[in-house]
Every structure is written in structure tokens, then in C-alpha cells.
């Protein structure tokens, strides 16, 4: 379960908590909750949307408990702490701009973009994950993309 889903869970967590070490904590918490309360029998595949819903709830819950300690939007990390991609010099600036744009989106928009554009979930899976009607998911995602494009223009 960890090797199949950890990366997707991490991205959802990061889009909510903005901090790689907190995202790590969320991944751990999600795996423990999934292990304890799995909706399927032993040996069966846990549905990805169920696991991501657990991750979403765990991240929000963690954020609530740490809200007072968390830094404000002005002091969010300048970039994810441990981006381990092969960055060429010219790519760094672009990624920084993208990260800046992402961190200025609202939480819903970031989660939707992470689920759809990065993890590649279907609209139906996202609706199940976030417990929202399908049309709402679609319209929010379209607007989230638009917000991201605007933010990128602003940061370029």
C-alpha cells in the first residue's frame, strides 16, 4: 500500500499543509488509519479515492491542531523543502515561480489541481474523495486552473 499510494497521498498532504515534514506525518497517519480501518478485506486493493479522502481529512485535521503554530502565508516555505528533481539552472526559476503561484491559490484549488493534474484522478474519483457533487468538482477545477494561470502571469 505504501509503495503504491505514498506519493499521491504526499501530494495531497503537501497541497494542504505546505510543508514537506508535515506532509510526511500525514502520509504516516494516513497509512496507519488505512491499516486500521480498511474498507476492504485482507489482500484486497484499497480504493485510491478512499485512501486520498483519509489523507485529505488527516491533513486538515493536522492543520487545525497546528494552526496556531503554523506560519502565515507570508512565511510559507520559499520552496518545498526536499524537491529532489533533476533541476537544470534555467528550470529552477520556473519551478520557483510555479511554487509561488501554487502557494497563493486557496486550499481547495491546490487540492483539486494536485488530484487532477498531478495524480491523474478522474472527476468521479475526485468527487468521491472530496465528498462533493461532480459538477461542483468540475467547475471548481476549471476556476482553479484559471487562478493558477493568473498567478503564474503575476509571478513571471
Amino acid at each position, binding site marked *: 500500500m505504501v509503495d503504491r499510494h505514498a506519493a499521491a497521498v504526499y501530494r495531497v498532504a*503537501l497541497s494542504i499543509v505546505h510543508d*514537506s515534514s508535515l506532509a*510526511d506525518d500525514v502520509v*504516516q497517519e494516513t497509512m496507519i488509519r488505512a491499516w486500521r480501518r480498511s474498507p476492504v478485506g485482507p489482500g484486497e486493493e484499497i480504493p485510491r479515492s478512499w485512501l486520498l479522502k483519509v489523507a485529505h481529512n488527516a491533513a486538515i485535521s493536522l492543520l487545525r491542531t497546528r494552526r496556531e503554530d503554523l506560519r502565515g502565508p507570508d512565511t510559507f516555505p520559499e520552496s518545498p523543502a526536499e524537491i*529532489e528533481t533533476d533541476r537544470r539552472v534555467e528550470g529552477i526559476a520556473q519551478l520557483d515561480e510555479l511554487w509561488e503561484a*501554487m502557494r497563493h491559490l486557496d486550499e481547495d484549488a491546490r487540492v483539486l489541481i494536485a488530484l487532477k*493534474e498531478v495524480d491523474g484522478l478522474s472527476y468521479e474519483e475526485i468527487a468521491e474523495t472530496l465528498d462533493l457533487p461532480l459538477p461542483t468538482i468540475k467547475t471548481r477545477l*476549471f476556476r482553479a*486552473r484559471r487562478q493558477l*494561470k493568473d498567478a503564474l502571469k503575476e509571478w513571471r
Partner: protein
Amino acid sequence: MTRHPSRRALQQWLDTGGPGRVDRHIEGCDRCQEELDRMSALDETTLSGLVAVTEPPSDLEERVTDGVDTRLRDEAAVGAFADLFAIGWDFLRCVIDPDPNREAARSTTDDTAHAPPKSADENRGGPR
């Protein structure tokens, strides 16, 4: 609204979220949703950038597996300690603060074993 909004109206909705009649139409119209999906799609550069900025650390799986193991082990240890503590506490309570009923029962047994039989009048008198 029975007619589909123009592309310009859809663009305006993307930009501003309004007007309300377009918003309501879009909520229930698959065709306009598909059109908006195309209009708002992110380019390849942005998509690959998104993957990069949300990339988990390469040792994530290892760290998570270790963290989960440690946490489950710690919780099991705390549970075992709590069980031991509960047993110890019960034992101490028996030693320090024995059950008064049991003590009374024992003294009654002792009395009846060693004392001479009471008369009927004494028995009627109850506890002193």
C-alpha cells in the same frame, strides 16, 4: 437558459465566476463543461512543473514504513505497559486497601471458628 453561452461568456465565467445565469447553466450542462475543460487546460510545461514541485522525497516510502513501524511498536509497548500497570495497581489495592466486605467476611469466619456459640439474644442484637 436553454441556449449554450458563447465562448466569450464562458471565458468571462472563467475570469470572474459570473454571471449567475451562466454559472447555473454550466452546473447542469455537460457540453459546456467539456468546453471549459478544454479552455482551462494547463499546458505541458506547467503540468510537468507541477509534478516537479510536488515531488515527494525519494526516500518517502522508506521513511513512512519506518515511521509507521515505530509508531505501531510504541503504541503496542504503551498498551503492554498500561496492562502491566493495571495488574500492579489491582495487586497493590488488594495489599494496601483490602476489600472491607472480604475483611468482614474473614473476621466473621474467624469468630465463628474460635468463639463459643452465641445465645439467641446476642444474635438478635445486631452489630455493635
